[in-house]
């Protein structure tokens, strides 16, 4: 059973870098696990921490926030704010003993199709080891 478990990872990908990187991985026919459910956002800074919490509580096995490398944000500074917000969110998870390793922040540029595939593969392996998010069985959320 565990063998068959394919995690469902909600990926918030910025349009200008990571989403384009995912596209490149596709057109370059680089293989990666079918675990990611991509949601395109205009910038990683559009990702309200509530989106992440909501995904987690609604039963995503993991959440990925991904955007341009620092310094390369299409809107210059967006991802610097993303990083701080994410740091806060992660700390809250850690302090409350929630599974912070079901969250991930990665910078993947439009030319990094290979890196996109690697990140998804690596993250998927990590979550496969952890198993499904137990929160999806909770009645109270």
């Amino acid at each position, binding site marked *: 059973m565990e063998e068959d478990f394919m995690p469902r990872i909600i990926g918030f990908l910025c349009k200008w870098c990571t989403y384009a990187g995912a596209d490149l991985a596709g057109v370059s026919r680089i293989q990666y696990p079918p675990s990611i459910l991509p949601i395109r956002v205009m910038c990683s800074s559009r990702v309200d921490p509530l989106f992440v919490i909501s995904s987690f509580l609604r039963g995503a096995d993991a959440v990925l926030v991904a955007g341009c490398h620092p310094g390369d944000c299409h809107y210059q500074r967006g991802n610097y704010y993303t990083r701080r917000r994410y740091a*806060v969110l992660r700390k809250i998870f850690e302090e409350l003993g929630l599974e912070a390793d079901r969250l991930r922040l990665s*910078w993947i540029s439009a030319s990094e199709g290979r890196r996109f595939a690697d990140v998804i593969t690596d993250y998927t392996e990590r979550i496969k080891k952890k198993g499904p998010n137990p929160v999806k069985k909770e009645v109270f959320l």
Partner: protein
Amino acid sequence: MAKFLELDKGTEAGIRELLGQSLRNGQVKAVFALRRTTNGAVNYSLITDPQMMEEAVPLFPSMPSNAGQLLSRLTLKGPVEGPVAVVVRPCELRALVELVKREQGSLEGFLFISFTCPGVYPLKASANGEIEGKQTQYWEAVKSGKVVPEIRPTCRACEHFIPYNADITISLVGNKDVDKRCILFLNTAKGAELVKGVGGKLSEGELETAELHAHREERLAEKKSLYDQGQLSGLGMDGLIEIFSRCIGCRGCRSACPICYCNLCTFDSFDYEYEPSTYEEELKKRGGVRIPPNTIFYHLGRLTHVGISCVGCGSCTDVCPVDIPLSAIFLQVGEAVQKIFDYIPGKDVEEDVPLATFEEVELTEIEE
């Protein structure tokens, strides 16, 4: 060495006289302080009539609402035409500063009087005159420099009991003669100006005595035991559900929190309201859904919103009808979040809220 003024009367009487006189001679236009109403309730009021100063109880050990919230509201549409003398607790002043940073009010025109704060009793104790009955015990503890018993849990655990940004700091904690002598530290020119003509004796001395340092140690120990009790890092989702499962969703904690300032809260909006299809989806996964959903979501969400600026005032815990120990959680998680950025909420009005600024190179350890 700091300058202080010593008046030959009880501390509260001294403050009352100083402020009454300042109103009479026009040095201040109004006073904002706790005031006892005819039926014995204590609330914040804005006072211009010097006569009414007799009803003022600026040191009454209760916080009907965090005054930071009230002063923000008072100045939301524009600053006061000062000077207005304000007597508030350190965490109320800190909350106001956090709100001003978010453009939710103004410090302009205020003259801030605060004190080394011994803490307040929970609001529930203000029913049936319970606090009145505790006054002797309260002031005896204040004089002794010990942590006052039975005050709010987060007051006991508060290490920021010496005010930041006060023009005048009244010495309370550990002041053995608190009922005989009124000691006012004059931190700014504005503060020094206000006490001119009130008489008394000017001297030099230190506010932060060895006793006060010892007192801080005691409060730090209280904080540690509060954190040990909470065992937050062991909670996990099951623990959170256990704590919050009795939440009735009244949103009282949000209304009482000075940092929660939005007029339209996202958790009251339709943004996260479930569609019929969402219920079906969730039921398929879980076999049952608590109605209404989104309680844990609300509390985790509120943590992401206010954690960075939580001043640990304890108002949230105080108003919760089902006694959820909110402020202990918010204080501890908030402090952890604040530490990432070395941030003390409400300390410096010039310092940006960490989420509204950044360093180009930082936090690389969280990037994967």
